[in-house]
């Protein structure tokens, strides 16, 4: 079943409010989470991401509002709902026990028999690549190993929704890369619905089916990744997501470290080693896009040349943000001087170009945009 054609809502929040010491810290009029999708909450520290995760996981009693799981309001006091979900935090929060016993904790809590625990835990230790650490004390693990143990402990109970609060933030870059890849693979394999909080844009781009940008306890914008990145709803979202043009596409040709990806409304040349047929996100930063009023030149070193029309010009202090329609959405920054020299205005036809090396390519396991 294609989740896009029959989106099934697994979790809903209605009129969700959380106050702390009389101060409102979360105000969400409505939020729906689609089964099997990965929703990424992105925003600066203190935006309310963790609070929203805790409230949705039934771990924090909201001061007002309802949380509805598969059509029924959750019972925050009991363990019923909590046994159908799982959560992992930024710190691994492991028990002072072996890796095996840590991963087994949720199953023991549910009263599962010894033999079954043994089988299930072993399978998930392998899945997260920590089978060889089963009998090691959790206090003797590296950061990456500890976070893998924490994630295995969360996944082993086969949760219907998994909540991840900045799960990679305390890891160094190479460890983080490797773990994000594994997590993405496991989430897709198990079709687990996930809600992930992060302040890292790259993580969001990598994992998200949908992105919710949060600020000051509110969702500033929610939607598919490309939509949020390309059409930020307001200045905050624009500044936080870095105003990148993000184009979902598929690799159609490769040669010698250069490839062509088909995106909606065009073909883009980019640098990178990918295999034909792979799904990718092509990201282009607005400062790398050049606008000219000349007709496309042939023979230039710039291969990505697209005629298009200016849809919107937004002043941003030193720069102007220019949104173009080139068959796909493309965002460029121009200085005030260029704006005047080129006599740019909304509706004007121009030529936009960027170098193949300016395209930042993010591989995606499967694409559901």
């Amino acid at each position, binding site marked *: 079943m294609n989740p896009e054609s029959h989106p099934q809502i697994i979790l809903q929040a209605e009129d969700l409010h959380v106050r702390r010491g009389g101060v409102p810290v979360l105000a969400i009029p409505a939020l729906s989470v689609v089964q099997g999708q990965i929703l990424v909450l992105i925003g600066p520290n203190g935006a309310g991401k963790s609070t929203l995760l*805790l409230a949705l*996981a039934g*771990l924090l009693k909201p001061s007002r509002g309802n949380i509805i799981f598969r059509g029924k309001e959750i019972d925050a006091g009991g*363990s019923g709902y*909590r*046994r159908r*979900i*799982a*959560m992992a*935090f930024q*710190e691994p*929060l492991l*028990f*002072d026990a072996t890796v095996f016993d840590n991963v087994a*904790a*949720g199953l023991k*809590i*549910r009263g599962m028999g010894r033999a079954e625990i043994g089988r299930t835990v072993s399978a998930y230790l392998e899945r997260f690549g920590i089978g060889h650490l089963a009998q090691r*004390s959790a*206090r*003797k693990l590296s950061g990456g190993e500890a976070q893998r143990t924490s994630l295995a*402990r*969360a996944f082993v*109970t086969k949760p219907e929704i998994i*909540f991840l609060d900045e799960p990679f933030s305390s890891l160094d870059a190479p460890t983080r890369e490797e773990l994000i890849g594994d997590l993405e693979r496991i989430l897709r394999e198990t079709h687990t619905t996930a809600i992930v909080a992060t302040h890292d844009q790259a993580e969001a781009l990598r994992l998200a089916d949908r992105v919710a940008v949060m600020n000051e306890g509110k969702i500033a914008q929610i939607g598919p990744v490309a939509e949020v990145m390309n059409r930020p709803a307001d200045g905050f979202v624009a500044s936080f997501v870095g105003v990148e043009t993000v184009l979902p596409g598929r690799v159609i040709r490769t040669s010698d470290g250069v490839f062509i990806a088909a995106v909606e409304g065009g073909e883009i040349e980019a640098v990178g080693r990918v295999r034909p047929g792979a799904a990718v996100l092509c990201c282009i930063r607005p400062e790398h896009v050049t606008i000219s009023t000349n007709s496309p030149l042939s023979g230039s070193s710039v291969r990505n040349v697209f005629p298009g029309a200016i849809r919107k010009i937004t002043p941003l202090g030193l720069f102007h943000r220019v949104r173009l329609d080139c068959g796909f959405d493309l965002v460029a920054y121009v200085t005030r001087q260029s704006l005047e020299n080129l006599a740019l205005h909304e509706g004007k036809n121009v030529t936009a170009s960027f170098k193949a090396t300016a395209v930042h390519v993010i591989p995606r396991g499967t694409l559901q945009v």
Partner: protein
Amino acid sequence: MDLIIEGIKKAFFLIFTLDREVLGITLLSLKVSGLATLISLFIGISVGTAVALSRFPGRQLVVSLINTGMGLPPVVVGLFVTIFLWRNGPLGFLEILYTPTAMILAQTVIAAPIVTGITLAAIQHLPANLRLQILALGATRVQMVWLLVKEARLPLLAAVMAGFGGVISEVGASIMVGGNIKGYSRVLTTATVMETSRGNFDIAIALGIILMILTFLVNAILTQIQQRERPR
């Protein structure tokens, strides 16, 4: 010098010949302080965990009281337990003054705040999100508390040592509420005080050595457990 050497000789003689009176005193000491520690563990771990995990008005005051209670002078405890158990005192009807039961009660009053205070600190010292993590694993409230206490087991062993160490070596309260009655409520510390005041240094030294060996053994066993549990 002779006094000490003779005393030590006599002391080992009394110990190795299992002198009946010395043996009886030792066993009663172990029984009274052991039971008092056990009761204190039940009270202290429950109260300490409850206070650590809850937020209520006046909590700060309760925590201060518990911390003050960790250093209660045994003679003051002895005084108040005596007053309570006095014939026309609030608990006089129990008729347990000058019995080992009264000593267990007094020693519990001394040890319980120590265990409570250490438990409170140990549970509060766990990572703040651990409670949420355990609940997110599907634990009921009872399972959550149990897992937290289990996680704090090493500092809780320290609580056992501190509680037992505090009461086995305590003399003021025991002598006041127990009365140091021969063959009935005489324990190692009260007997040591009495024999010393009578000039019977040999017996006093014997009792002192036994007291030290006892506390050493108990702590050695607990330390053994603690060190084995500690990740290598």
